[in-house]
């Protein structure tokens, strides 16, 4: 067992008892990242070793994250450290300030070691739409990591870093978490500040933790959640103590299975593993009930009209004048999304597409509210299949969009969703499940995920590279 196989709880104790030093840990992390990078291409930037070690030498152990090496999706601004969003538009961009989440982690004593590969601007679910080379799945290097936060997922799966910060607009934390066998939390919209996070679709974007286990996610969320005066959409709701009730179990919890998610499009092996996870919950004392989310029929339409509309506006700022390179540097996938969004917002089509999708968004929210009146949480697959082969999604615009079918309804509703490993296919490819809950139900989701991970060990499996 190497150092970075330990949990945040254990490592943080070892740091305090001086059994391990932050420098030792940072060196181990950088060494692992460097050795895996040629295979996984998880990183766009690895930080200078001397700078990292200097920081580790002087770090004060004030929080559970102090002295722990972590990585960021390359969508978060880091002062003086190149931030690309995986696009050639920003390939030389050096931010003048840092994102709130970066400042919070820095204050908590986290040691940033790298910035990770992703789909450019969050546009994709495979980390193939990147100008820095596709990230590869450490479980099978011929396959994608998922995306858009694919690099961070590969980093955690390989035990290069202790935790990562990802960003989820339509499944970008959950999908790579599932395909790389790690845990990830898409938080309630507004739970974590988006300040300094390069915008994809502003009313959907959420910033959240990725790690080996649910308990680790709880440690990270406690440090990054909360209102931020620099993000007017961040929530004034008090931050919960995500660890204190995490071991209370799931007895009598009602877990809903949405029947529409278990249709023909779902790979039978994935389906089987989700059903098994549901019976595991039953053994733990939870009750499984059927729920219905009929609006999933329109999920792809809502998401792929509204998110491109917002991105066409957000990406308008990249004109090569104040920063970055010109618009001729956008990839095909990004150009498609800008074009779809511009079309949906243009005169004559606004009511038929944009407004219609916004109304359908209301109906999606109503669907969830109705479902949560008869259950506490909703259990479902994350992706219809295990990780796809490299080239499979990027070459087919429609298939690329359909890969997100089970995750894209979460973001229009703003609700949180926890992704955790729930088994492997016959080919030893990881499969994940997601637990969705009502607004600000992070504590409940983490408790349910933690309970499952006490009686299963899928999350402890790691790839051999």
């Amino acid at each position, binding site marked *: 067992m190497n150092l970075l196989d330990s949990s945040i709880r254990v490592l943080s104790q070892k740091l305090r008892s001086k059994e391990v030093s932050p420098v030792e840990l940072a060196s181990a992390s950088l060494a692992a990242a460097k050795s895996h990078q040629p295979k996984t291409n998880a990183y766009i930037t690895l930080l200078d070793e001397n700078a990292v070690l200097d920081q580790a030498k002087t770090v004060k152990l004030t929080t559970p994250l102090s002295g722990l090496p972590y990585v960021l999706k390359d969508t978060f601004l880091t002062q003086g450290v190149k931030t690309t969003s995986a696009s050639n538009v920003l390939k*030389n*961009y*050096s931010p*003048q*300030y840092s994102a709130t989440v970066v400042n919070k982690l820095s204050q908590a004593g986290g040691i940033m070691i790298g910035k990770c590969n992703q789909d450019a601007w969050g546009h994709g679910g495979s980390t193939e739409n990147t100008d820095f080379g596709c990230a590869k799945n450490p479980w099978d290097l011929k396959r994608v990591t998922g995306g858009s936060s694919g690099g961070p997922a590969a980093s955690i799966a390989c035990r290069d870093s202790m935790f990562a910060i990802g960003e989820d607009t339509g499944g970008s934390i959950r999908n790579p978490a599932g395909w790389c066998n790690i845990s990830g939390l898409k938080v309630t*919209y*507004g739970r974590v500040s988006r300040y300094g996070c390069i915008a994809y679709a502003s*009313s959907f974007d959420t910033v959240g933790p990725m790690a080996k286990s649910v308990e680790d996610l709880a440690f990270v969320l406690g440090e990054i959640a909360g209102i931020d*005066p*620099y993000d*007017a*959409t961040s*929530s*004034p709701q008090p931050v919960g103590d995500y660890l204190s009730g995490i071991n209370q179990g799931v007895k009598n919890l009602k877990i809903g299975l949405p029947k529409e998610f278990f249709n023909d499009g779902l790979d039978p092996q994935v389906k089987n593993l989700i059903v098994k996870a549901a019976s595991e919950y039953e053994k733990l004392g939870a009750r499984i009930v059927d729920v219905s989310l009929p609006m999933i029929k*329109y999920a*792809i*339409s*809502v998401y*792929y*009209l509204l998110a491109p509309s917002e991105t*066409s506006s957000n990406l*308008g700022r990249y*004109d*090569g*004048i*104040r*920063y970055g*390179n010109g*618009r*001729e540097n*956008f990839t*095909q996938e990004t*150009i*498609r999304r*800008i*074009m*779809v969004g*511009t*079309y949906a917002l*243009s005169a004559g089509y606004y009511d*038929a*597409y944009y*407004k*219609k*999708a*916004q*109304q*359908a*968004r*209301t*109906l999606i*929210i109503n669907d969830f509210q109705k479902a949560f009146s008869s259950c506490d949480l909703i259990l479902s697959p994350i992706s219809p299949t295990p990780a796809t082969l490299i080239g499979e999604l990027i070459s087919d*615009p*429609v298939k690329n*969009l*359909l890969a997100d079918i089970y995750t894209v309804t979460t973001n*229009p*509703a*703003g609700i949180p969703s926890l992704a955790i490993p729930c088994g492997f296919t016959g080919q030893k490819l990881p499969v994940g499940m997601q637990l969705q809950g009502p*607004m600000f139900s992070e504590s409940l989701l983490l408790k349910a995920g933690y309970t499952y991970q006490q009686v299963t060990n899928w999350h402890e499996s790691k790839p051999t590279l």
Partner: protein
Amino acid sequence: MDVTSIAKLANLTLTPSELTQLETGLNQVLELVNHIRELNTVGIEPTSQVTGLTNVTRDDEIDQSRVLTQAQAISNSQSVHNGYFEVNAIFQDQ
């Protein structure tokens, strides 16, 4: 979809062959999302955000910790002149 005019609105400069290639992919995407037009949304309010927050304001005071110097502000630009961003002229001399 009139890809030429949409590209113009989106400030994207694309060659005719790029536009043709794009058109196929875009039409496929539109076909996929088009069925939303059949959804009955009579009397349904549109949702543009889910925070439940309204009129979030800050004090009308300068936050010095967030102020960039002029040099910082232009530090990422490829084209500056005398400490300013340089842009193409909008009005041409006759």
